[in-house]
């Protein structure tokens, strides 16, 4: 029973990370109809930047802020330099470009920082809280992770729902040509969408790095778990991504705890296939458009 509680708790904090990265995937999918397979590699680069800053003796918080800022810039540049050129091509081309970026960034990180993973500090203690006489698998740092992700999700939700920028972002994503005819600078909205996504991704990377370590391919599993979470949530809905992320976090935590960590990716694959076979629009499928 204690194990079950422990697994549930660690599932929630891991799930928060998957949720954040899934949110990044959903933001980009909504903006440009592209699944950014380079998302994991992009947050790997920004986390390396943060790690380098910390190693150079800078405070953790500065490193965190710089990582997020670097993510914003990185996302915007990626859209401007690469994605814009394949936006009108068949979708398979965009997928291949993000895969190329994934491969290139992992190689680049290996070149600059070597293939040996390095440690990254946590913001708060990673020792679990003591409840009664037992230590649970939930630490002050887990609290921090869950709160930060929840805050970011709420902030993004408010941005999309209540601000003019959010309205323009949504309009550009749903109907680019109509949005243009209403004066929305659609290209700029796409750039902002990519920047926001990569910023959220960078934050998630820095939050998860204390437990995964920072290495060129260390964030590959995060990408596939986040993709599974995003698909579970329908790939379209930010709320779906959050719920999907926590759900995946829980399932993977139980599978790792009871059956071994090596089977976690297989469990993700099974969930992915089940979702796509049974409910391809995700568990939060929006209502169908009325045909007129």
């Amino acid at each position: 029973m204690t194990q079950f509680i422990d697994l549930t708790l660690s599932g929630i904090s891991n799930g928060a990370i998957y949720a954040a990265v899934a949110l990044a995937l959903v933001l980009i999918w909504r903006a440009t109809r592209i699944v950014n397979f380079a998302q994991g590699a992009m947050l790997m680069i920004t986390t390396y930047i943060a790690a380098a800053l910390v190693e150079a003796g800078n405070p953790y918080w500065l490193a965190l802020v710089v990582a997020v800022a670097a993510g914003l810039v990185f996302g915007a540049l990626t859209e401007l330099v690469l994605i814009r050129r394949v936006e009108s091509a068949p979708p398979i081309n965009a997928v291949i470009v993000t895969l190329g970026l994934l491969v290139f960034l992992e190689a680049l990180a290996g070149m600059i920082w070597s293939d040996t993973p390095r440690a990254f500090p946590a913001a708060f203690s990673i020792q679990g809280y003591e409840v009664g006489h037992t230590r649970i698998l939930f630490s002050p740092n887990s609290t921090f992770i869950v709160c930060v992700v929840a805050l970011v999700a709420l902030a993004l939700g408010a941005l999309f729902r209540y601000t003019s920028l959010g309205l323009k972002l949504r309009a550009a994503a749903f109907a680019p040509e109509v949005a243009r005819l209403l004066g929305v600078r659609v290209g700029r909205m796409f750039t902002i969408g990519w920047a926001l996504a990569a910023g959220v991704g960078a934050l998630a990377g820095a939050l998860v790095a204390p437990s995964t370590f920072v290495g060129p391919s260390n964030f590959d599993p995060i990408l596939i778990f986040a993709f599974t979470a995003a698909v579970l949530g329908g790939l379209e809905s930010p709320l779906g991504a959050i719920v999907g992320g926590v759900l995946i976090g829980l399932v993977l935590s139980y599978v790792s705890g009871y059956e071994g960590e090596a089977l976690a990716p297989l469990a993700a694959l099974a969930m992915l296939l089940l979702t796509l076979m049974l409910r391809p629009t995700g568990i939060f499928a929006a209502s169908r458009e009325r045909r007129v």
Partner: protein
Amino acid sequence: MLEVQDLVCEYGAIRALDGVSLQAAAGSVTAVLGANGAGKTTLLRAISGLKRPRAGRVALDGREITAAGVEEIVRLGLLHVPEGRGVIAELTVAENLRLGALARGARRGDGIEAIYELFPPLRARRSEPAASLSGGERQMLSIGRALMAAPKALLLDEPSLGLAPLIVAQIMGLVRELCEERRIAVLLVEQNARSALSIADHALVLDLGHVVASETPEQLAREHELLHAYLGY
């Protein structure tokens, strides 16, 4: 006043517009008629900046906008309501309208009440997604949204498409009223010549990118052969 002079547009080797000229004065409705493929939609796309013309000139209130970007043209007060009632189905009715206000750089809520006055059905459904609207309501919404931008010129592409005759008459009546009240230059593209002519001050007939007739609706109505040949009357 919207002026178009000798506009030429090409898709690859195909010339979709071949020297089209027209003038649409503020407070008047100019109907553009023609069969499928006559170049009507291309004309609108070229005016609103979606399609770069090969040659020719477009001006709004004396200011040349031929080379301007779509976004800039919108800010100058030229609104294009595309065919298929381009409402954004995923956004709510109110959000669609707010988007229209943003087009002229206004604060978001401004003028939304006036639109609800004009189109009462929209008020009732303001927080529902536009996807749930009927065809007529969608047309109201897309026109209302353009009005939110306080346009000087309004391009309407086939507003009657797929609507019941009664609703078409209603919409056409509203367009006429708005045009006069708000001194808007309306360019109305239609295949439904009868209803377009009923509210137009001037009518153009396009055929394969050429203007084959440019006269008043009364004159046009008398030319049975022309109407028959180009519009299938």
